[in-house]
């Protein structure tokens, strides 16, 4: 019961009679979470349907790609179901959600042979009532009763004319922001982790440059001061003392100068690299709404 609640597994069993009265379909739906109005929408879209919830058909929703012969994996089960419900075809629909996307996999079986005759996988970004709309389109496509509204619904949301699409965020915008302040371009592109890494790295390097320069400055001033005192005395002990101090200051000012230049170089290089990185990970528009199905990547619970 808990498992059913967690994944909201339900099977939607219905017999659909398409416009072609000779073809009858048994539709099995498997959703990994509750889709409100799924059943009522299908009743409304496809008349003469009846529903029966049955959890014994889990086997039909296993990944058939793991089978040696996917098309004939469930021949006997399909034949039995076809005889039991007196239908010509069985349509298995499965919807899985991964983050802000959902995957719809549809499989059409012929009950006379028991084989898989048609299969379709769709990977889409969520849109309003998208799962029901895509399910209706798929079932309508199979049963031959496509409603233009479904297509318009999809197109109105997913397929706007390119001339109407405004890309307010651009990779160049991200790069320019990162050139001004490291990490800003990554924040602009919603890459919070890399933004933090770049900002932290550049801040640390800049601090190192500043500290090195300040230490260089102190050492250089001390060197000049001790050199002046060295030149202005004719006392043997003072000459030796100021010379030793000035030599230490001279060594320090050389060391910190080299460090400041090295850190400045690293900061500058990192700054440019950060800008290039911001351009690379910068926001870009999706070119393909349909993506290749990867059976390993989605969470296949439910």
């Amino acid at each position, binding site marked *: 019961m808990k498992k059913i609640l967690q994944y909201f597994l339900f099977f939607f069993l219905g017999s659909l009679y398409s416009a072609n009265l000779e073809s009858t379909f048994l539709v099995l739906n498997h959703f990994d979470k509750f889709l409100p109005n799924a059943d009522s929408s299908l009743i409304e879209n496809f008349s003469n349907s009846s529903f029966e919830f049955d959890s014994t058909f889990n086997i039909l929703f296993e990944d058939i790609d793991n089978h040696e012969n996917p098309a004939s994996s469930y021949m006997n089960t399909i034949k039995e179901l076809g005889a039991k419900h007196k239908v010509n075809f069985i349509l298995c629909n499965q919807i899985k959600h991964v983050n802000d996307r959902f995957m719809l996999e549809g499989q059409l079986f012929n009950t006379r042979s028991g084989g898989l005759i048609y299969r379709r996988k769709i990977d889409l970004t969520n849109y309003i009532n998208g799962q029901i709309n895509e399910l209706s389109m798929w079932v309508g496509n199979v049963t031959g009763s496509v409603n233009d509204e479904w297509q318009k619904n999809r197109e109105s949301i997913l397929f706007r004319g390119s001339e109407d699409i405004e890309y307010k965020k651009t990779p160049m915008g991200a790069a320019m922001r990162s*050139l001004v302040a490291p990490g800003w371009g990554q924040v602009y592109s919603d890459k919070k982790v890399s933004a933090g890494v770049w900002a932290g790295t550049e801040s640390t390097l800049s601090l190192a440059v500043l500290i090195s*320069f300040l230490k260089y400055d102190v050492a250089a001033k001390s060197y000049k001061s001790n050199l002046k005192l060295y030149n202005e005395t004719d006392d043997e002990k003072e000459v030796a003392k100021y010379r030793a101090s000035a030599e230490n200051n001279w060594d320090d*000012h050389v060391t910190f100068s080299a460090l400041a230049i090295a850190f400045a170089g690293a900061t500058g290089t990192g700054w440019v690299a950060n800008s290039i990185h911001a351009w690379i990970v910068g926001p870009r528009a999706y070119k393909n709404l349909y993506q290749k199905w990867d059976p390993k990547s989605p969470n296949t619970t439910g």
Partner: protein
Amino acid sequence: MKCHRGQLIIILACLVVYSCTIFEKDFDNPVDFEANEEKGIGAPTLVFYPKSQTKTTSDSVVVGSFIVFKDDSSMEDFSGVHLQIIFPDSYLELDTIKPGLFITDTSNSMPLFTYTFDSVNTIDIYAYFLDTLKPDLLGTGHLADLVFNPTSTGSDSVSYHLNACEMIDHEDNVIVLKGDRGAEVIVQ
């Protein structure tokens, strides 16, 4: 705009690089035996301090005469010196010669200090250390101060005539002087 950004980056880079200027290591105090050695002048050395000075005709020019020893055990003690100093009489005239503190004895009295002047440009100074507690001296020290009055403007050097200078210990053994350094005097 891009051009300005590039210029800004270049300017910032130049600022960092040129702000971190490396100063020349310039130790050249005549009283410093290390500085003299770096110039190839060995110790003991006769030098003047300061090595260069610029005065006006109304000022007095004071040039200190020093003996510089190396700070190690290879040096020999000395008791007496003879210095022959040549100065540019074209714009300087000798005013006074003062003994330095180095060769005075422990009671701060003046054991032996005398000089001769040829009334032209050569001064001979004779000094001898006559302390009752120790016979010799070792180390860098002040032998004499020479005070000149400028007679006109000019630029030249006060120098030692090293071949005529001599340093001896209390047994009258000669100690070889390894070098000398003059002093530039500019009167404007």
